[in-house]
């Protein structure tokens, strides 16, 4: 007997009799015998006590470092109530809400989540979530090239290189071409964009705040795109949208990004959540689930998956995307985060992060071996130039229990002297001063 298998010998016997066979092996008699009987070389069964022992050993091999880097994953505070709510079995162990009468819980939080994404981005409609911000951006590219029937897309070089890489991978196999728009002084080179923009491109992908942390002003982009009927795709930090100008205010057609900044634990990179929101006009071209409001036969307000004719389980090879369910519980996570932090709390957490990052920036760039490099204002990532070896810097910080900056040279050899730092509302002045002291001693 094993704790996850409730069958007694008597049960097995009775069941075999009903089926009309003699042994459990008879259930597999059609499988060619060559395929059966492989002796498995895997670990033995662990009792729960042994499980805890094993994972305590594994945990001891990890060493927590205080992060002073963001670059797509930010160490924001997670209020306690969230884990208690998302651990409720009603949410945790349910499947995709295909039977709406007994899935109103899931459907309602998806509706609340969509409402929150619409409020933050200003867009008309959000889907029920994507895997992460990078894959959401790639899906936005598919959507745009599909809508415009053009197989090329522009992407700014100031977009996080990991996102560019994912977009390029998706494009390569789908048969699309990605053209990079040059950067100038840490922001998208608008002249290069104007030169490259043409009827061949489905549109442009930009990011705000961009990879360097700079908040770019994209006010002129809508008009430029209108000349070529191009679509405007913006990847935006979700938490930052409580403060910054929204994609809708910039005239964006498809807003995407990562929702990790709404309190999702760092978790070594996942699970996070991607979002994708768009205009009323493009609603029926969107990938993923969308929840809508309706009534039941007695007139009660109720929620239901809608516009499913777009989706893979109906349209198969004609679907707009292959995405099915994806990060639903994380949609609940950011919904509960938004509820508990509320209108003021998210703004405060984000503003405190911005303030901490600016404090860090001013302190570090006063040190002789660290310099300011871009003139533009930034959000909660900042770029600093150094004359020192980034590897050496991070090694010294590691010894002090600190996770140092991302070396931008990892992506571009010509920028090997640039470091990307970040601080959130969790970082104290004492912690930042300690970081600065270590750097000063180098």
């Amino acid at each position, binding site marked *: 007997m094993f704790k996850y298998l409730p069958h007694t010998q008597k049960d097995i016997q009775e069941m075999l009799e009903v089926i009309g066979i003699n042994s459990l092996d008879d259930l597999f008699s059609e499988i060619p015998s060559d395929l*059966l009987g492989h002796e*498995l070389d895997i670990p033995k069964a662990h009792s729960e006590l042994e499980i805890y022992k094993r994972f305590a050993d594994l945990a001891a091999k990890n060493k927590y470092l205080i992060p002073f880097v963001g670059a797509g994953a930010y160490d924001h505070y997670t209020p306690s109530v969230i884990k208690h709510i998302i651990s409720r079995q009603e949410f945790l*162990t*349910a499947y995709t809400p295909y039977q709406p009468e007994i899935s109103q819980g899931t459907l309602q939080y998806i509706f609340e989540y969509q409402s929150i994404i619409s409020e933050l981005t200003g867009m008309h409609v959000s889907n029920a979530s994507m895997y992460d911000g990078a894959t959401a951006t790639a899906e936005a590219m598919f959507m745009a090239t599909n809508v415009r029937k053009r197989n090329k897309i522009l992407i700014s070089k100031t977009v996080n290189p990991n996102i560019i890489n994912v977009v390029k991978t998706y494009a390569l196999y789908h048969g699309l071409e990605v053209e990079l728009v040059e950067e100038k002084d840490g922001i998208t080179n608008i002249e290069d964009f104007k030169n490259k923009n043409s009827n061949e491109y489905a549109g442009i992908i930009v990011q705000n705040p961009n990879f360097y942390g700079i908040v770019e002003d994209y006010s002129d982009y809508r008009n430029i795109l209108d000349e070529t009927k191009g679509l405007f795709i913006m990847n935006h930090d979700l938490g930052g949208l409580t403060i910054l100008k929204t994609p809708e205010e910039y005239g964006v057609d498809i807003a995407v990004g990562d929702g990790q900044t709404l309190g999702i634990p760092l978790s070594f990179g996942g699970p996070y959540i991607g979002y994708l929101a768009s205009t009323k006009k493009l609603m029926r071209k969107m990938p993923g689930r969308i929840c809508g409001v309706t009534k039941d036969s007695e007139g009660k307000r109720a929620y239901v998956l809608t516009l499913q004719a777009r989706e893979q389980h109906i349209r198969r090879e004609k679907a707009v995307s292959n995405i099915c369910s994806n990060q639903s519980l994380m949609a609940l996570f950011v919904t509960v985060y938004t509820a508990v932090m509320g209108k003021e709390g998210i703004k405060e957490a984000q503003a405190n992060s911005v303030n901490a990052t600016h404090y860090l920036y001013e302190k570090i760039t006063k040190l002789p071996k660290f310099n300011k490099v871009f003139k533009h204002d930034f959000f909660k990532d900042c770029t600093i130039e150094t004359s020192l070896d980034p590897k050496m810097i991070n090694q010294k910080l590691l010894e002090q229990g600190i996770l140092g900056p991302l070396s931008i040279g990892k992506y571009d050899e010509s920028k090997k002297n640039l470091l990307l730092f970040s601080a959130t509302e969790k970082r104290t002045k004492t912690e930042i001063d300690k970081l600065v002291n270590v750097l000063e001693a180098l």
Partner: protein
Amino acid sequence: MYYDKLIFEISKEGRKGFSLPKSEFTSHKLENELLRKSDALLPEVSELDVVRHYTNVSFKNFGVEKGFYPLGSCTMKYNPKVNEDIASMSEFNMHPYQPLESVQGTLEIYYETQKILSELSGLHTYSLNPYAGAHGELVGLMIMKKYHMDRNDLLRTKVIVPDSAHGTNPASAVVAGFESIEVVSNSDGTVNIDSLKELLSDEIAGIMLTNPNTIGMFEKDILEIAKLVHDAGGLLYYDGANLNPILGLARPGDMGFDIMHINLHKTFSTPHGGGGPGSGPVGVVEHLVKYLPSPVVKKVDDKFIIEDTNDSTIGQVSHFYGNMGVVIKAYTYLLTVGKENMGNIGRFSVLNANYIKESLKDDYLLPIKGICKHEFVFDGLIDKSEHVTTLDVAKRLLDYDVHPPTVYFPLVFKESLMIEPTETESKDTIDEFIKVMKIIAEEARNTPDLVKGAPYNTVVKRLDEATAARKPLVKYRDLLE
């Protein structure tokens, strides 16, 4: 009482549910042109408001811990509690840019999980990066494409998918830039070899199969199929959605599959979460290992490293390392089950399915006779004289506190009712289900309108889905207009 308030509808201006430390830093003001014009309309509620609201919302849901959930092809097995406790250990909550020397414990989990998945499936190496089954399919097909591209075999633009396949298969093929073509199934959903032979040519990149298929039938000619496809220059992709019944018994790698994904949220007990986060690791045979997306974790002199595959990989497919939190849960499960019990997962999932099938075949139409694997399909009721449909049966099950099976899939039958009990359900639970299904069949004969009007005991009744699609209301603000 029916609770239908939205979090926005219990909001009061000035209320708050959070506390943050007072900022120690000077306030930084960005230029006005960079700021949003007005605040987002977000809830303002107390902490208790939040907790009570979502508790009440949760009561409107049905999870595996409430009752039987025989949803075909979804493998709704029990999600062990210890998995959750382990995954929430703070020592695994690190920034993804921590240097690898400081995350050796996490990398060891990746390494060990890769190894166990390889051994269970018979494929050489895994990448745990893909976020979900559909993501795994896409990654697997990219590998298929890259393989042909590298051989300069550019004519191979078509992927064969059976008509009984999950809808995701043809959709993934198209997203990966292939044309999806259908192979005709035999009446039991297995591949028709003659039809396959006609399709095979130098334009075929490969074939995607689920084995056992969506009707629960094992593809007994799989070795011949593999030979035919390989001889024609194609590769075989295994959709791991139906891996559970052969777990610990037979291996896709031994059948001749070259690429596969595994749904950790199906076979390896991680919770479905109302539709994610899941995890869809992709495994490949040895000659395709170089195409895997990062991270592929290796052990070198007792240190765990992430292999540098920059020169040969299909490319980057997600921002970081995949859903690490889900991987930890699956690894916990794999260790708990272990070598001793692994084969019984497959055996008992198949025993349960066949027991239900044989017990209900006098009331429900069984189009495909014989031993099934972990799931099987009824084509509605046998007695259709009162026009009670599969949808009606499904809705009536709700009144008996059972989650309905998958309905109207696979598409090869008109009234498909696809039942997958999983191995974690006891004979007692299953007997109760059989009893209920028989009662419903009897109701359908004697009081058909009762079944057609179901459900009666749910918080909402049947929904008007047509209006929702015609005039979509997709956010709180739409309700204010």
